[in-house]
């Protein structure tokens, strides 16, 4: 009896403390995920009058839908570009701030600000700056002979959402890279300097290799971000257009579900996204935990 009570006491408190988190996870993740999976197996008519179990038909339809496959390709190009651009700039800024040493606190603060701006707000800013008729950057570009209109040119639209999405990630990557750089013992770089390695060689042979775990971690984080969290940016800038050219998967889920009322298709697309995030999370846990020892 007593043992039982003790056991009960031990689990009750942790459960109580976890309850809010569990509730949030349940309500905002598990329940919708379950709904998405269930609905992905049904098809509904356009008026929402009849719901029919359709097995994997929704998934089959996706697999043979050329616009969906194009969207998948766009998403890949988009997220790889976001990752590449924001990682390189984050690293470049971190290297510069690390070299500055004393003033780096200032740079840190300065560079972290974009991270605090809501994606929709920053999206609106980008739309304004690149507005085809009144945008200040558009005017500048016209001076150098570039005709900017992301409402017509699909390549420019993609470039715009990449830029708008990167602004925030650069700040995030910068912080991690800076922390990574500063955790490399100073004596390693001094030893390398004595070993006749100049700053550039030191970077490529000592600092960059030692940042590998950080880079890999950030690569996954940035890919996840580009895949799943860029809805706000797109909804504020291109709405997936022109045509389908910036209609990445996460935006498509919204389009199909809410605009086109194709609930079954939208649910199936969500499930695919869920599977992709699961893969990323697995990679994250499996490979990123490894640490470098100095």
């Amino acid at each position, binding site marked *: 009896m007593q043992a039982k009570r003790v056991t009960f006491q031990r689990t009750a408190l942790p459960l109580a403390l976890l309850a809010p988190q569990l509730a949030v996870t349940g309500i905002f993740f598990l329940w919708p995920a379950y709904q998405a999976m269930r609905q992905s197996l049904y098809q509904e008519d356009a008026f929402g009058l009849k719901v029919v179990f359709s097995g994997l038909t929704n998934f089959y339809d996706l697999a043979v839908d050329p616009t969906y496959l194009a969207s998948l390709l766009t998403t890949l190009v988009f997220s790889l570009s976001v990752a590449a651009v924001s990682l390189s700039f984050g690293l470049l800024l971190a290297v510069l701030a690390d070299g500055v040493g004393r003033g780096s606190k200032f740079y840190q603060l300065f560079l972290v600000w974009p991270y605090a701006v809501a994606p929709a707000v920053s999206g609106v800013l980008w739309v304004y700056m690149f507005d085809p008729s009144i945008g200040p950057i558009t005017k500048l570009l016209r001076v150098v002979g570039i005709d900017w209109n992301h409402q017509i040119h699909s390549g420019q639209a993609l470039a715009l959402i990449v830029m708008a999405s990167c602004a925030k990630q650069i700040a995030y990557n910068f912080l991690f890279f800076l922390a990574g750089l500063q955790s490399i013992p100073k004596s390693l770089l*001094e030893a390398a300097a004595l070993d006749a390695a100049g700053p550039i060689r030191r970077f490529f042979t000592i600092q960059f290799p030692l940042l590998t775990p950080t880079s890999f971690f950030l690569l996954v984080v940035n890919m996840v971000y580009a895949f799943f969290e860029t809805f706000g940016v797109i909804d504020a800038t291109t709405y997936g257009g022109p045509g389908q050219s910036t209609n990445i998967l996460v935006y498509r889920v919204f389009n199909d579900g809410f605009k086109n009322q194709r609930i079954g298709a939208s649910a199936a697309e969500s499930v695919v996204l869920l599977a992709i995030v699961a893969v990323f999370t697995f990679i994250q846990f499996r490979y990123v935990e490894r640490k470098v020892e100095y």
Partner: protein
Amino acid sequence: MAAVSLKGIRKTYPNGLEVVKGIDLEIENGKLCVLVGPSGCGKSTLLRMIAGLESVTAGHIEIAGKDVAALEPAERDIAMVFQNYALYPHMSVFDNIAYGLRNRGTPRNEIKARVEEAEKLLALDGLLQRRPRELSGGQRQRVAMGRAIVRRPSAFLFDEPLSNLDAKLRTQMRVEIRTLQQRLGVTSVYVTHDQLEAMTMADQLVVMNAGQIEQVGTPAQVYDAPVSQFVAGFLGSPAMNFLPGTIQAAGDLVLDAGGHVTLTGTATQMQGQRVIAGVRPEAIGIAQGAPAFTARLELVEELGSARLLHLRLGQTTLVAVVGRETAFATGQDLPVSIPAASVHLFNEKTGRALV
């Protein structure tokens, strides 16, 4: 010609702290010079200035006859062994040792030959393909040495290279480093705060205190004739005993704590002077000759080879090293004798030695 020559070296850090306050030092070719001093006295700062890792506020540094002021660390023809070894964690032992040679464009087969030579010299056989984290502390230490010697520099700089090792390994590595240094005949500057390491390894011993040199000499010279109370107390373990007193009649030192010590030589002319008498623990005799005073035995420490007696005389305690022939019981009152020849006298105010 001196291999390393320092003239009027000063260092003030950007925060305004002056940590090196005018150092003049000449280190002869092929000699091992040990910089020893308490923590924070500026040893590492001085070494890093020689290496070029720290800027020099004032003064001149010459290495192998060349003023190095305008030279980058890599151009100074020195190699340094760091306290934490500073091995590149992502490279194999081979690559760690070869890194500096590769950066200098040494031909491939030459690199291989030199690394293999270092491998033999440092007993690194079979470790070349390992990563630093797969090595023991002593092995990492050797790799750090290897990285220094393959460069064939005109000077080695060591910053407390043994302080991360346990006591036994430290003794062993001390001998290894010294043997290797003598074999290669490379001028070396060795920083430590361990007085035993300093005494045993040095050709030239430099005792530093608060950014200045207190004394330079061979270990025996510095040990036998310390120029100040600081040096006297710093070298030797257990440390020298200090007993304040006044010189009364010719050659009669009356200790404040009670008791008389008979002095000889010039000290007999210093009547009325306040002094501090320094006596090394091994010079103190128990129940031999005319006792200077009797002291209460408070504690006996067994060292195996000898015994340490902790004695109380009035308010002061002193330590004596004695052989193991006689057994002593704590609480006993012992007659303590102090041979006149073994007494070092220091000015009570300045701490300078009185000859």
